[in-house]
């Protein structure tokens, strides 16, 4: 019987993947054979050369980017977020009041090589990063993709998240919170079929991403969304996007999709309303996304695996499990609800580029990029959440390091700016 188009492309990919998994596992067995347990820090997945390779890859985009990057000219805050967040997961950050990127005090591979030290030395200062973000802010509120660009809820999220990651006392000082809240409130659709949903920018599209991006921004800047938004209407819209499969589409009726499903459930969780959708059916769909051969996740039924879904689907499953545990006594939970060993092997053995170039990629055959490096690392960190220190965990709802979010909350509360 002839293969369907889906079977053909899936089997082609699986041939490559199985070869890499077999090779990687054989090499691993050749070492002392010890595999990291879940009590180890996430960085124990890697050796020093690998970590430095990924760090160098991320750093290569922090200052100047080749002309071909003009296709991302409306997404520069994203580039900054992917890079600094990825680095922060690897233990490289602007520490405390410092102006320079350095390995954190807990960085397990100190001292860094001379090569990395030189690269770190050439990276932009914290002030420069903050200055760049500020150049994207609009007086009408929110952040655009670059200077003199329309505010967009996605670049607003990326800008604010980058500020949280870059951290420090003054990180959020530049945010005009009043104008920001007003911008986000204006983006909510007030009438008609899509009431409750959000436009991503003036004249822009309306879809599930926006609900999440808006809620996550409110969370990070410490403002109560209930003051500025019609949360009931938002929840109704989100409910209408859950499909028969159990996941969520971008708009009502659209196919269940990993990115939109994460956005839907995380937006609800940020509003404290996760009980208002069919979580069981969501679990049904989300648990089907991890592939038995590859170990990674796909974004939709019968589509190919992609390392970025390690985050979107992985974090979604962690959120589902967290919520279900609150509802029902599920007893001792040994592992994540997804198969963390299989996910790790997929990411580490199939999606890492060797230290010479570094970076992580969508799948074998693809080139590494900052987006996939960020989300593959974020997804991988989920396998080591349980019992980890806040500086080794990323927040499930905002995808910034927990310690940085906690530090920010504390500062905002001290300054009486926290209204949640």
């Amino acid at each position, binding site marked *: 019987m002839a293969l369907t188009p889906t079977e053909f492309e899936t089997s082609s990919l699986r041939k490559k993947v199985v070869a890499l998994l077999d090779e990687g596992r054989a090499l691993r067995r050749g070492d002392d054979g010890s595999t990291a347990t879940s009590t180890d820090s996430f960085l124990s997945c890697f050796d020093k050369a690998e970590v430095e390779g990924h760090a160098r890859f991320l750093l290569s985009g922090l200052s100047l980017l080749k002309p071909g990057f003009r296709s991302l000219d409306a997404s520069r805050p994203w580039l900054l977020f992917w890079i600094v967040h990825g680095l922060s997961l690897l233990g490289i950050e602007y520490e405390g009041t410092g102006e320079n990127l350095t390995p954190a005090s807990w960085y397990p591979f100190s001292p860094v090589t001379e090569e990395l030290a030189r690269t770190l030395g050439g990276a932009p200062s914290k002030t420069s990063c903050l200055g760049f973000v500020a150049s994207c802010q609009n007086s009408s509120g929110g952040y655009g993709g670059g200077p003199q660009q329309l505010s967009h809820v996605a670049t607003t999220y990326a800008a604010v998240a980058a500020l949280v990651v870059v951290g420090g006392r003054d990180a959020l000082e530049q945010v005009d919170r009043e104008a920001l809240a007003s911008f986000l409130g204006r983006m909510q659709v007030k009438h008609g079929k899509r009431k409750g949903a959000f436009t991503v920018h003036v*004249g822009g599209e309306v879809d599930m991403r926006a609900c999440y991006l808006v809620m996550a921004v409110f969370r990070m800047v410490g403002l109560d969304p209930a003051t500025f938004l019609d949360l009931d209407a938002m929840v109704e819209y989100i409910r209408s996007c859950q499909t028969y499969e159990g996941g969520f589409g971008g708009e009502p009726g659209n196919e269940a999709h990993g990115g939109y499903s994460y956005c839907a459930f995380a937006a609800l969780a940020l509003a404290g309303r996760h009980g208002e959708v069919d979580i069981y059916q969501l679990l049904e769909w989300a648990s089907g996304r991890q592939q038995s051969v590859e170990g990674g996740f796909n974004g939709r039924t019968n589509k190919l695996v992609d390392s970025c879904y390690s985050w979107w689907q992985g974090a979604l499953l962690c959120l589902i499990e967290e919520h279900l545990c609150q509802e029902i*006594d599920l007893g001792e939970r040994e592992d994540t609800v997804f198969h963390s060993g299989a996910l790790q092997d997929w990411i580490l053995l199939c999606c890492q580029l060797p230290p010479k170039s570094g970076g992580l990629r969508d799948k074998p055959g693809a080139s590494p990029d900052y987006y996939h490096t960020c989300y593959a690392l974020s997804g991988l960190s989920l396998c080591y959440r349980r019992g980890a220190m806040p500086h080794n965990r990323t927040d499930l709802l905002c995808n910034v390091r927990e310690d940085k979010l906690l530090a920010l909350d504390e500062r905002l509360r001290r300054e009486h700016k926290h209204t949640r």
Partner: protein
Amino acid sequence: MLLSAQPEWADVTPTPQLEAPGEPVVRIRYDEDYEDAMGLLRSLMAKQELSDRALHLTSVVIFMNSAHLTVWEYRRCILRALNSKARWLAELEFMHEVNELNTKNYQLWNHRRAVVEVLLPSDTEERRRASLLKGETLESEHTLDKELEHIEEVFESDAKHYHAWAHRQWVTERHGCWKRELALTEEMIERDPHNNSAWNYRFYVIQSCGVSSGSLQAHVAHAIGALERGLDNEAVYAFLLGLLFRGPHRKAPQEDVAAVIQGLLTERQGGGARWVSFQATLSYSLALRLAGLEDGNLMLWTSPAFSSLPCPKALAQSAVKKWEWLKMADGVRKGAYELKIKIALSTIRTLPE
């Protein structure tokens, strides 16, 4: 020669991009052409010049960066100001060219909706605005059929194109043009029974148009037929469960639903993990409904048509048994099966014997 050096642009002083002072951060080394065009465009946007030359300049930039949403939005402002039917019609060709460069682009598909709202008005307000457009009715009018055809052309190169399927849903919903839709999904499913986008759209059409007597069986038979091309097809199982529990069942005759479920609960020879998983979910979902724990206000589940089926407790227990087996047969999902078993066991404790 750079644009800004051309006579046409002599009256415009380019506006530089206001990069933050200091070290470059994620700064793109723009090539001359792009930097030059953007410099001019910033000046035009600043004075809100909504002219033909401004329109042309947005084309130049969009071909260099089709994700530049600020420029797309400015383009729409210009089109609205020019208010010319011919200009809006020309957008079809422009978008076609952009699609050739990059089809997976939010801005392109968002723009397409704006264009369709003008060229194919569907409500009073849209028709009112269309009547105010300047210009003669042209030979190459855009039609609903042409719009649907365009979407199918996109499916030729990518049968699972997310934006295209979403766009089709948007078009059919606003125009109520359901005639061809079921047949389209049959063609797409025939081409590739694993195409979940097609199954999802099929569900959407059935849900929107309703299920008449006998058609539920027909839809189920069609789905089972697709399994002939491979039992390991998650899309089909999800679709079947959707038909039975997620909406279409509400309008189908009770005997039809009961008969279908009865048939599907029968063991199938040679079924792998997916078939077993499907039956487990089917049993458990049914158990909850027969026990009145889900879909409680639907009379269907109290129908005598279901009296020959096992009781809810037995159905739930059979699901648990299958999930226990699946923990080993489908190990990557062990954690999820454990969760489902725990949830089911706690539910079973509440069910009568």
